[in-house]
């Protein structure tokens, strides 16, 4: 029996047709994946399915009955609950209150013991480290906040749960736990609609896969019997080369022939952690890996001059005259031509209420700006990164997530740094865009820029990096080079196993 069916769904925003003809069906006891490029209409589809938007046309059928969702609560009553891509939590409230959010009547009291127990059990199932129900959310790392968001939705015990790239902040072991839980739901006859950019995840998890392109559902496939290149071709609608087949390793000269541009000496996160001595060389892409919260992010931020208060030791840039200049602030780092692209574009990266152009040119606004030059430069990046927008005075907040990410990247690349520090730059970015970015990164290091890349996408590290440094327990656990950079070896190191 079909748990949920969508027929010829349409939705337009003014002139823009977000969805023009979308149909698929999700059976009971099925994990159904949906994949599409950024701007293909996935987010609109999810918002219709979760009751936020109402469609312009087409049919929504739940349990064989046509329905209209008037609100999120109405969708929930029919057993359809979605987990959004963004990690939406109330930071000042406790884990329990965040999970209970939006439930109970107007004057009903706090959650009962039964609810607490169930929430506690579910948290234990999904998180490797225990999460206390009474901690406030702001005390938790982002990865655990995402677990809370997932638990909040699952506590409603929905018949159909929709995950809209809702695993992007999870670390590997918690993600596996979630997948295990989703499979268990499937065996109980419940359904999952799973939206992701990660083909490997989809192939491991989903029973069927629907590809969406330009607001139209193209085809429903069996992901286990379809090759990656075929899925990519369906998504893009043209015959692009497979990403994983493409060898993009460039001809980095290697440590011996390159000079050091950035180094840390005896860097320690706290009194007990192991000191880190690290060098980044001119013209290399060095990757930082590790399970969430093992220090790689604190380290990357320290390189950018954003030092945590407990940090000890030295971060220094080696300038063009071979002088060592120590770095204690973002400004000092910027003066040494080190640019940092943060992970959370909404809070750290963009001025959502300013135009694309202002966002792009912001770091250069300390000087007198030649508007025409900026416009030309932006145009260049628009073409190179295929950023999609009407005109550059549009608010950056009106762009899709992937395009916003490109604007942030373009901004910092435009400052023409010697060292570019990237904090998970392709999170939530579709595959063709990823390829555009990878090509750009290679071009940049070809011009002797150094890139330090923190990534949660292992394929990305394997594909791009000349070296990968794996963090564990607040120190460097191991360093992989050249041919030694392999997915399983990175994972082994992340989990503290020597290879």
């Amino acid at each position, binding site marked *: 029996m079909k748990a949920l069916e969508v027929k010829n769904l349409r939705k337009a925003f003014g002139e823009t047709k977000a969805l023009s003809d979308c149909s698929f069906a999700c059976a009971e006891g099925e994990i159904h994946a949906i994949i599409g490029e950024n701007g293909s209409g996935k987010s609109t589809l999810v918002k219709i399915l979760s009751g*936020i938007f109402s469609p312009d046309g087409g049919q929504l059928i739940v349990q064989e009955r046509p329905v209209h969702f008037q*609100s*999120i*609560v109405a969708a*929930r009553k029919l057993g359809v609950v979605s987990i*959004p891509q*963004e990690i*939406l*939590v*109330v*930071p*000042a*409230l406790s884990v329990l*209150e*965040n999970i209970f*959010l*939006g*439930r*109970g*009547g*107007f*004057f*009903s*009291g*706090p959650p009962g013991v039964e609810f607490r127990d169930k929430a506690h059990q579910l948290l234990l199932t999904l998180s*490797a*480290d*225990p999460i206390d129900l009474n901690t406030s959310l*702001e*005390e*938790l*790392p*982002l990865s655990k906040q995402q677990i809370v968001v997932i638990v*909040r939705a699952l506590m409603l015990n929905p018949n159909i749960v929709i995950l809209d790239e809702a695993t992007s*902040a999870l670390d*590997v*072991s918690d993600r*596996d736990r979630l997948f295990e839980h989703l499979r268990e739901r499937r065996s109980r006859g419940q359904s999952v609609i799973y939206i992701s950019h990660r083909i490997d995840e989809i192939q491991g998890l989903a029973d069927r896969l629907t590809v969406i392109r330009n607001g139209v559902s193209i085809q429903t496939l069996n992901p286990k019997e379809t090759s990656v290149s075929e899925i990519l071709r369906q998504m893009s609608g043209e015959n692009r080369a497979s990403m994983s087949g493409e060898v993009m390793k460039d001809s980095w000269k290697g440590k011996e022939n390159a000079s050091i541009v950035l180094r840390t000496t005896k860097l320690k996160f*706290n009194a*007990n952690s192991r000191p880190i001595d690290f060098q980044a060389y001119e013209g290399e892409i060095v990757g930082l890996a590790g*399970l969430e*919260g*093992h220090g790689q*992010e604190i380290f990357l931020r320290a390189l950018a001059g954003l030092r*945590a*208060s407990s940090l000890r030791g030295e971060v220094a840039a080696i300038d063009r005259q071979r002088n060592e200049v120590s770095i204690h602030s973002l400004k000092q780092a910027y003066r040494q031509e080190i640019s940092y692209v943060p*992970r*959370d574009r909404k*809070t*750290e990266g963009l001025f959502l209420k300013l135009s694309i152009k202002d966002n792009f040119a912001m770091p250069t606004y300390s000087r007198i700006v030649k508007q025409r030059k900026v416009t030309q430069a932006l145009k260049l990046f628009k073409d190179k990164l295929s950023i999609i927008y009407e005109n550059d005075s549009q608010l950056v907040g009106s762009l899709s997530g992937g395009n916003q990410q490109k604007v942030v990247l373009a901004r910092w690349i435009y400052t023409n740094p010697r060292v570019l520090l990237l904090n998970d730059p392709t999170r939530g970015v579709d595959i063709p865009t990823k390829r555009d970015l990878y090509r750009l990164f290679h071009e940049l290091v070809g011009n002797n820029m150094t890139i330090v890349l923190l990534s949660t996408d292992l394929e990305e590290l394997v594909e791009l990096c000349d070296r990968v440094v794996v963090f*564990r*327990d*607040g120190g460097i656990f191991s360093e992989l080079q050249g041919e030694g950079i392999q997915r*399983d070896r990175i*994972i*082994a190191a992340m*989990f*503290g*196993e020597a290879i």
Partner: protein
Amino acid sequence: MTQSPSTNTSEVVEQDVVLRKREFWMTRLPYMSVALVILMILLLLNTALETNLWTISVLSGVIASAAPLVIAAIGETPAIILGNGSLDISIGPLMSVINVTIILLVQQGLTSPVIIIGMAMLLGVGSGVLNGVFISVLRIPPIVVTFATYTIYMGLATHLLSQPGGTIPSWLANWTGNIGPLPISAVIIAVALILWFALSRTRFLRNIYAIGGDERASYVSGVPLVWVRLGTYMLTGLFVSLAGLMLTAEIASGDGNIGTSFTLTAIASVALGGTSLLGGRGGAMGSLVGAFDIFLINNVITVSHVGVFWQDVAYGLILVAAVVANALIARPGRRRGR
């Protein structure tokens, strides 16, 4: 994929817990601790300046005079916790309207507590509905809506009673007195606090905090934003009706301008009491302590006979210092935003 369990991970977690506990003591003082410290200092100062402070009659006089501000501050609290620029500046003139209406009712010979208290509540909650509908349903910024009602109420109050004067029924006048050693004004404050704490166990009040903390998270979780916002302004109005009654008891007559200054002092009390003006954090207890602080600051300045100019300067400086101190202790220890 390799499975994770290893002893190292749990060590990290333990370390993290120790670290978090330390952070807790450094940064997670009770939100009202600044207001409490100031209260201690002020009580000491007041004791030094006015040695008979700790007698029942003086103390109950102090509580009775402070009570209108205390209750108004408690009333302003939910409107501010709602966040996103939410606040209610109409509360001061609303207190005037309630005061003037009571005097007019008495002039008509209507002195029954049922009628007077009922009328005060009707005005308070009615104002809450008025503000709430414009803010919650029509999505007009709270400062605009409540400034409009502020002016309307001010005009209305002075129009209804052009000359200060009038009398109040004796039952209301007794609100400034005692039952045995217990000041009745303290009971009235207790009523307001009990209402607050009863509500704070309900979804309604927790949802005010949730919306103040993160509006979008509340929306996607199915919190009924419109109803909660409307309810918040009604709740503020309900508290203000009690504050208006207490104020009338205190001055024992009518004055169309009597309430105006309460808007700013109530908002200042809430801020001093540690409630974040950005919403989502704080509470009525803090506002209570904050309101007593403000009352006692005024008291100290008055009894120490400094010039009017220095009074205002000192008052302003203490307020700024207190709000800065609050902001410092409320700052989350380490930014865990990743």
